[in-house]
C-alpha cells in the first residue's frame, strides 16, 4: 500500500506537468517525489513560518493571506475546493440546483459540531449570510452574497438559497467560513464583530481548534478530536511570525521550521540545492493563483492605438522575464484564467518576441525616429517617453520594470521607472488612473468569472477595471458567463473571452508565478495536485519514530 501510493503521487505530478506544457524539465526532475513510509500516527507539532502576523481571527473581516491560512484550519465552509480545483462537499454533503438555476439547496452533514460542542445547523448558515450582507459588517468580500434573494432553513439540515437571477458562482460563494450564531449574534447585529471575543478566541468547525495568539509572535492551533472528517494526525500547528525573509531561510537551514511557502526563486532554485537540505526537506512546485501583468492605461491616446500595444507585446520577451526574475519558476501567461482549471484555454493569440516587428508596428502607428536620437517620435516630433510604475518593496516587480525598460529602449521608447510605496501607489496612481504603464499582480479565484476586472461598467476609481478596458462583446460574454449554472455553457464564454483579451491586449499578461513550498521530510502524506499541497493537510502525519515534539 505505501509503495502503491507513492507511485500514484508520482503519476499525478507528471500529469500536472504535462497539462501545463511550460514545465521546466530540469527543475521538475529534481522536484520531489513523495515518499510515504511508516504507518500514519497521531502527534507532533507542525511549525510554519509566516512572514506577517494575522490580522484577526474572523477571516471574513480580513484580507491578508496569513489570516486566511490560519482561518482555513479553524473554520469550514459548506463547500470547498478539492485537489483538482473543483468544488467539493465540506459541511454540506450535497447540493442541487433547481432547473432554472435560481434555487440552490444544500443538504448539511448531521455530524458537524462547533469547537464548543454545540451542533452546527442550518441556522448558522442563515446567520452567516445575514452577517455577511449586514452593512455594518466590514467584510471586504461580500460581493457574492449581495446577489442572493433570500436564504431559508426549512429544517435544521437543509438550506435553500434563492437568487433573483442565475449566478454562476453561487456554489462557490458558500465556501465562505461559517460563523457560530450562538456566539456572535449580538455582536453581528450591533456591528461590533471586530471587537467580539471570537476575533481573538475563535470557535469554528474546522480540523483545528484555536489555542493561543501572541500578536507578532505566533498562533497555536491544536487538532480537533471531533472533526467530522476524522481527527487530523498532526496534533499541533504553530504559525511563527518571522518578519525577515532572510531569517526564515536561516531557520529553515537550521531545521527550526517545517513549512515555508515564501521562498524566493533564488533560494528555491540555488540556495537549497545541497544534500543536507534535500534530505531534510521536500520541495514542491505548482502554479500559484495569481498572474503578474504590465497594464496599459487605455485612456492614454498612445495606448488607445492597438498597434502600439501590439508593438509593446512583441518587444517584451516573457521567457526572459521568467528566467531573469523568477529563475524559471513561473509559467508564461496569455490570459487571466488560471491554467489547469476547467475554463482555461491556451488556444489564444500570442505575440512572439520580435523587436523588428515591434518597430514596424510603431512606425505604422506613426512613431518613427525622426531625429536619429534612438527614440521614436510622433509626426509632431514629440518623443515617445513614459513612466513604468510599480509598488516599492517588491523586488520581482522592480526587476520586471527594469527588464521591460531595456526592451522598450530597443524599440525606441524611453521609459522611466518609478517605485512608490503601496498605499500611495494605489491611491495616487492606480485608482485615479494616473499612469501610463503599471506592473501589478492580480489573483484568480477558482471560478473564472472576472466580471469586475473586465466589464466596462467597472471602470470607476474604486473598481477593479484598472486599465479602463471596454469591449461590448466581452461585456456580453461576461454577463452570459456569470448567468449560467451549467459548466458546459460557461466554458464557451470564457474561452471566447480569453481569445478576445489576448487580441485586444488591455494588458500584457506576463506570467503565473509558481508557488514554491518546502515541507520537512519527516512529514508524510503530502500529495501534490493542481490545487497545491495543502488540500489534504489533515492526512499529513509524522511516523512515530520521527516525531520531534512529544508535547501536545
Amino acid at each position, binding site marked *: 500500500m505505501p509503495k502503491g501510493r507513492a507511485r500514484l503521487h508520482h503519476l499525478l505530478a507528471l500529469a500536472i506537468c504535462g497539462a501545463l506544457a511550460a514545465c521546466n524539465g530540469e527543475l521538475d526532475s529534481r522536484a520531489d517525489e513523495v515518499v510515504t513510509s511508516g504507518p500514519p500516527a497521531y502527534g507532533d507539532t507542525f511549525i510554519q513560518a509566516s512572514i506577517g502576523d494575522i490580522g*484577526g481571527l474572523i477571516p471574513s473581516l480580513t*484580507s491578508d493571506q496569513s489570516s486566511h491560512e490560519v482561518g482555513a484550519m479553524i473554520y469550514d465552509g459548506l463547500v470547498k475546493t478539492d485537489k483538482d480545483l473543483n468544488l467539493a462537499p465540506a459541511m454540506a454533503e450535497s447540493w442541487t440546483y433547481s432547473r432554472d438555476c435560481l434555487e440552490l439547496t444544500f443538504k448539511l452533514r448531521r455530524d458537524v459540531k462547533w469547537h464548543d460542542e454545540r451542533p452546527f445547523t442550518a441556522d448558522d448558515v442563515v446567520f452567516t449570510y445575514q452577517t455577511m450582507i449586514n452593512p455594518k459588517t466590514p467584510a471586504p468580500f461580500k460581493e457574492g452574497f449581495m446577489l442572493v434573494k433570500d436564504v431559508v432553513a426549512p429544517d435544521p439540515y437543509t438550506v435553500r438559497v434563492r437568487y433573483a437571477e442565475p449566478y454562476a458562482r453561487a456554489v462557490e460563494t458558500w465556501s465562505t467560513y461559517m460563523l457560530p450564531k450562538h456566539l456572535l449574534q449580538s455582536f453581528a447585529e450591533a456591528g461590533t464583530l471586530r471587537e467580539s471575543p471570537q476575533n*481573538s478566541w475563535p470557535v469554528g468547525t474546522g480540523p483545528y481548534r484555536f489555542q493561543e495568539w501572541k*500578536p507578532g509572535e505566533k498562533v497555536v492551533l491544536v487538532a480537533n478530536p471531533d472533526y467530522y472528517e476524522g481527527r487530523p494526525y498532526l496534533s499541533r500547528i504553530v504559525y511563527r511570525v518571522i*518578519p*525577515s525573509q532572510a*531569517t526564515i531561510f*536561516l531557520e529553515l537551514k537550521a531545521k527550526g521550521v517545517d513549512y515555508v511557502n515564501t521562498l524566493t526563486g533564488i533560494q528555491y532554485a540555488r540556495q537549497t540545492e545541497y544534500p543536507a537540505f534535500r534530505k531534510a526537506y521536500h520541495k514542491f512546485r505548482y502554479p500559484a493563483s495569481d498572474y503578474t501583468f504590465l497594464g496599459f492605461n487605455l485612456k492614454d491616446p498612445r495606448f488607445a492605438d492597438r498597434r502600439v500595444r501590439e508593438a509593446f507585446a512583441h518587444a517584451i520577451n516573457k521567457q526572459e522575464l521568467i528566467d531573469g526574475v523568477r529563475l524559471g519558476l513561473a509559467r508564461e501567461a496569455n490570459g487571466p484564467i488560471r491554467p489547469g482549471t476547467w475554463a482555461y484555454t491556451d488556444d489564444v493569440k500570442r505575440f512572439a518576441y520580435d523587436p523588428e516587428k515591434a518597430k514596424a508596428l510603431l512606425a505604422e502607428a506613426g512613431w518613427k525616429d525622426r531625429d536619429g536620437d534612438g527614440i521614436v517620435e510622433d509626426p509632431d516630433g514629440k518623443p515617445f517617453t513614459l513612466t513604468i510604475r510599480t509598488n516599492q518593496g517588491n523586488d520581482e516587480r522592480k526587476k520586471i520594470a527594469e527588464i521591460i525598460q531595456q526592451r522598450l529602449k530597443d524599440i525606441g521608447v524611453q521609459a522611466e521607472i518609478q517605485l512608490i510605496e503601496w498605499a500611495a501607489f494605489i491611491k495616487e496612481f492606480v485608482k485615479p488612473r494616473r499612469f501610463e504603464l503599471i506592473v501589478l499582480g492580480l489573483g484568480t479565484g477558482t471560478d473564472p468569472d472576472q466580471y469586475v476586472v473586465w466589464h466596462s461598467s467597472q471602470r470607476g476609481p474604486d473598481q*477593479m477595471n484598472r486599465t479602463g478596458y471596454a469591449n461590448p462583446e466581452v461585456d456580453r460574454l461576461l454577463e452570459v458567463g456569470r448567468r449560467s449554472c451549467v459548466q458546459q455553457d460557461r466554458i464557451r464564454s470564457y474561452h471566447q473571452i480569453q481569445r478576445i483579451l489576448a487580441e485586444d491586449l488591455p494588458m500584457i499578461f506576463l506570467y503565473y508565478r509558481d508557488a514554491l513550498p518546502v515541507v520537512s521530510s519527516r512529514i508524510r502524506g503530502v500529495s501534490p495536485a493542481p490545487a497545491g499541497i495543502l488540500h489534504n493537510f489533515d492526512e499529513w502525519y509524522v511516523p512515530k519514530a520521527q516525531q520531534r515534539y512529544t508535547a501536545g
Partner: protein
Amino acid sequence: MALFALRRLLLSIPLLLGITFISYVVISLAPGGPLDFLTPEDPNASPEVKERLIKEFGLDRPVYEQYWKWLKRAVHLDFGRSFLPDGRPVLTKIGERLPITLFLNLIEMAIIVGLAIPIGVLSATRQYSLYDKITTVFVFVGFATPDFWLALLLLILFGVQLGWLPISGLRSLNWEYLSFWRQQWDFFAHLILPIAVATFGGLAGFSRYMRQSMLEVVRQDYVQTARAKGLSERMVISKHALRNALLPVITILALALPGLIGGSVIIESIFAIPGMGQLMVQSVFSRDYPVVMGNLVIVATLTLVANLVADITYGLVDPRIRFGGRRGRR
C-alpha cells in the same frame, strides 16, 4: 528648583499639544488611508464596505475635527481601537509589546554604559596610545557595521553552523515543558544575539562622548591641582576627573530615555521579536492612525519628561548650576 521644574512642566503641555496636532495632520496627509488595506487589490473586494468604515472611523470629517475628537478621548487616556481588522484597543496593542522592548533596551543601555565608560576613560587617559587606537578602530567598526549584516553573520555562525544559539523568537516552542532553570536559560539564549548586535552598534557613540568629555576635564586646572597635591593618578582620575566628565554624559543618557520604548525595527525583524519597533512601522505602513498616534504620544511625553529630568539632574549634580540658579532668583 521646584518652581523651575513646575514652570518647565507647564510649558510642556502646549508643546505636547503641538506635537500631537502636527503628527495627526502629517499622518493624515500621507497618501493612502487605512481603508486601502481592508479593501485591497482584489477583484472581489467591495467598495461599499470601505464607504461604511470611512464613516465609522470618522475619516470623512475634516482633519481638525478628527483631531479634536481624538484629543477629547486622549485626555482620558482613551486612545481608541486599532483600524486593523483585529480592532483591539491601542493600549492593549502597545502594552503587549512594550515590556519586551523596554527589557531589551534597559539591558542594552546598561551594557553600553558599563562598557563605554571604562573604554572612554581609558582611551582619554592614554590618548594616542596603542590601546586608544585599537579601541577607536573597534568602536568605529561597530558604528559603521550595518545591524542587519552583523546580525545575519552571527546567526549563520552561531545559529546555523555551530548550532549553539537559537535563531529567532523569544522562547523555544517546547518552552512550557522545560524545567524552571532550562526556561530561564532558553529565554536568555534567545536574547544573546539581539543584545550583542544592538550593543555593538551603540557602543561607539557613547564611548566617544566619554572619551571626549574626559579629555576636556583632565586639562582643567583643578585636575592639575589635585595632581600637585600629590594624589595618586588613580585618585585624580576616579575622584576628581571622572565625576566632572560624567556631567554631559548624564544629559545624553536622559535624552536616550525615549529611545528605550522605541525598538529597532531591523533587529526586531531579523530576530523575530514582537516589539515596539515592528508595531510602529506596521501601523505607519497600514495607516493605522490610532496606533500611530498612541505610540507618538508616549514617545513625545517621554521625550519631554527626559528633557526635564536631564535639566533637573544636571542641576542636582552640578553645584554651579544649582548655586547659579539661587543667585539668579535673589
